[in-house]
């Protein structure tokens, strides 16, 4: 049952007016006035075009925008009289918005949407990022049709990404999730995804809300889907919108992804310790695509942060890493920048030692996650250097090689986890 205390009276009243639906599309926002109008319009058209007979609602969960985001969302709702291009609405399409304080409520957007979905008994839900300016109305169909038609419980996207986009994903989150949790989900922390009521209700009842794990609620959903009795699929959505992130976003991203993975290892030990290798996931369309247009990235800066991090965090890293790994890292920073490479084996060993340390928690677990950030920059630097002139196939081959390394070295993590060296 939904935790009704997180839903304001006004929002609850709007949900009463919406009533039971067949489809819910969630739209988390925070100061997205520049992009949200286009996204809402595409969702609306998608619902009218592909699900004209279904009872649908668009729910915006806003973290307290100050740029008029909510007004734009509400204005985009269909009135009783308006049409949208050549798509005529058979039914009323509700578009409602609720606000919560995002600063102090990590994961609140998804929590709100899950609670709302429970109350309106939506059997199929999708969440779409308000930053996805490459959105196409067909995304609505691609995400929701497998839920509605094929009894899939969780649908994640695949994209055409620039070879240097999604570095954290390619070098850490995807390979680690794949190795530990058995399924080759290309976007384990998806900006848009769809889920069944069954999966949504399980997550709604989970003990993550109000805890630090809630910051990566989307990752929690992925892990719940992968380790539970749920059917998972992927769908190709086309171009991924590139978002220019500020450096501080990386720490948050690490918490949302790696932090959640690490924190789940204990409770899901019986699953990941007994699965070897990884399985492909049914995918509609391409599993991934890589674009190669020129892109300027400051590689030098990445290396500098890596080197500085090894120095500044020496005592922290010593409490996390084995002496052998620590020595190797310290040796690596003495190399000239052009010669430095963070090998796959070294990187995987680093990550698994961090994971094991997270369990023991010699220091604050959040500090452990944060300490991985500069080391990740070293790996990102290596990826950029090795793929500087790579073709799309070569990039994919390199990523696959890293994935294989994560999978092959997994027994080491199991051993360390069980108390071995």
């Amino acid at each position: 049952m939904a935790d009704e205390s997180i839903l304001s009276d006004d929002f609850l009243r709007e949900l009463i007016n919406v009533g039971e639906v067949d489809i819910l599309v969630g739209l988390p926002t925070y100061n997205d006035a520049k992009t949200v109008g286009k996204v809402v319009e595409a969702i609306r058209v998608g619902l009218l075009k592909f699900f004209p007979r279904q009872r649908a609602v668009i729910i915006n969960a806003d973290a307290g925008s100050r740029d008029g985001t909510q007004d734009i969302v509400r204005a985009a709702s269909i009135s009783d009289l308006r049409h949208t291009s050549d798509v005529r609405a058979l039914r009323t399409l509700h578009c409602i918005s609720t606000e919560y304080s995002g600063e102090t409520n990590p994961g609140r957007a998804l929590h709100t949407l899950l609670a709302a979905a429970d109350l309106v008994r939506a059997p199929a839900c999708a969440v779409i990022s308000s930053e996805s300016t490459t959105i196409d109305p067909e995304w609505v169909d691609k995400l929701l049709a497998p839920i509605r038609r094929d009894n899939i419980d969780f649908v994640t996207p695949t994209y055409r990404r620039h070879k240097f986009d999604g570095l954290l994903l390619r070098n850490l989150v995807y390979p680690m999730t794949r190795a530990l949790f058995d399924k080759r989900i290309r976007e384990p922390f998806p900006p848009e995804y769809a889920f069944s009521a069954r999966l949504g209700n399980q997550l709604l009842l989970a003990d993550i809300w109000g805890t630090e794990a809630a910051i990566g609620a989307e990752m929690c959903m992925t892990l719940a889907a992968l380790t539970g009795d749920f059917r998972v699929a992927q769908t190709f959505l086309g171009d991924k919108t590139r978002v220019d992130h500020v450096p501080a976003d990386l720490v948050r991203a690490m918490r949302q992804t790696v932090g959640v993975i690490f924190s789940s290892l204990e409770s899901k030990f019986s699953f990941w310790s007994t699965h070897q290798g990884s399985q492909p996931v049914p995918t509609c369309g391409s599993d991934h695509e890589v674009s190669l247009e020129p892109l300027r990235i400051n590689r030098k800066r990445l290396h500098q942060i890596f080197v500085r991090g090894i120095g500044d965090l020496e005592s922290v890293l010593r409490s996390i890493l084995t002496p052998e790994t620590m020595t190797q890292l310290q040796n690596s920073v003495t190399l000239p920048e052009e010669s430095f490479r963070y090998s796959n084996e070294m990187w995987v060993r680093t990550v698994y030692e961090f994971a094991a340390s997270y369990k023991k928690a010699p220091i604050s677990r959040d500090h452990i996650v944060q300490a991985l950030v500069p080391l990740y920059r070293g790996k990102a630097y290596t990826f950029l250097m090795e793929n500087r002139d790579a073709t799309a196939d070569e990039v994919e081959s390199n990523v696959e090689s890293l994935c294989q390394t994560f999978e092959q070295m997994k027994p080491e993590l199991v051993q360390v986890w069980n108390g071995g060296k």
Partner: protein
Amino acid sequence: MKFWLAMGVDAFRLDAVPYLVEREGTNCENLPETHDIIKDLRARIDREFPGVMLLAEANQWPADLRPYFSEGDEFHMAFHFPLMPRMFMGLKLEDRKPITEILQQTPAIPEVCQWCLFLRNHDELTLEMVTDVERDYMYDEYARDKNMRLNLGIRRRLAALLDNDRRRIELMNGLLMSLPGTPIIYYGDEIGMGDNVNLGDRNGVRTPMQWDGGWNGGFSSADPEKLYSPLMLNPVYGFQAINVSSQERFDHSLLSWMKSMIRVRKSTPVLGRGSIEFLYPANHRVLAYVRKYQKETILVVNNLSSSAQATELDLKAYKGNILIEMFGRNIFPKIGDLPYLLTLAPYQFFWFRLRKI
């Protein structure tokens, strides 16, 4: 026409009137010559047989029908064809949108004219004045058996279309009698007669009237085998189960209910002559409107949904009025500053008279 007028008929229904005059090089529809003839006919009737009414059967969009009223010197009345399928659509969708949209598009007509509203008639439930998407929806929801479909329409009776659900039958009749226009009840629908889709053409909805449970349902004293159209015989809709005589015995029968509805409707001129203003409560399953005529105001609230609904109505403009429910004549709370909360059972509707005392 004069023969029938001399006999005392009250009105003429002009069938397929848009096609009265045809001319080469045109689409033969709604030509000026047709209007000329109607105007002449009307002038002669008014002169020689005042009080006789002309009713147009013109399956057109409301805006295209408007010329048939002209300035009150052509037809007195016209069927509102586009509204009818949308009432059925709104019920199935559990959404007022199709109904409010078509009525918002309906133009004003001269004071001395009126729309004719209907749920069913002797023809198929026509789906000409809807989009392809809407037509497909109606077919899928109301005529899954393709044998029920004919000429871009559905050849079924009201009760059969509504799965013989008394609540839905009452709601649809409630809409028929409270939306602006003169209601037309197709013979047999007042007792909930069924249809026979195994008869050809539209004959399945034209079976003999079921007056009683006896010989030929009281329709004819001829041998049953000689009847032009066979009687309905099945246990659900057959003449022994559904007939006037048995329904006259009980206050709770559909026939008794229909009579009581008509009595209440006739108790006020508002529903027949009044204006309409839609309220748009946030709950789209609720269709609510205010009818006004001279000093009288009636609030109509309909739950189009199969489940109970709560709705809040913005009635600030009528603050201070007491609501009096028109069937039981019980008093409901006075309208204040806050939205007026109503809860409705599945398919329930209210007619409230507003009174300021």
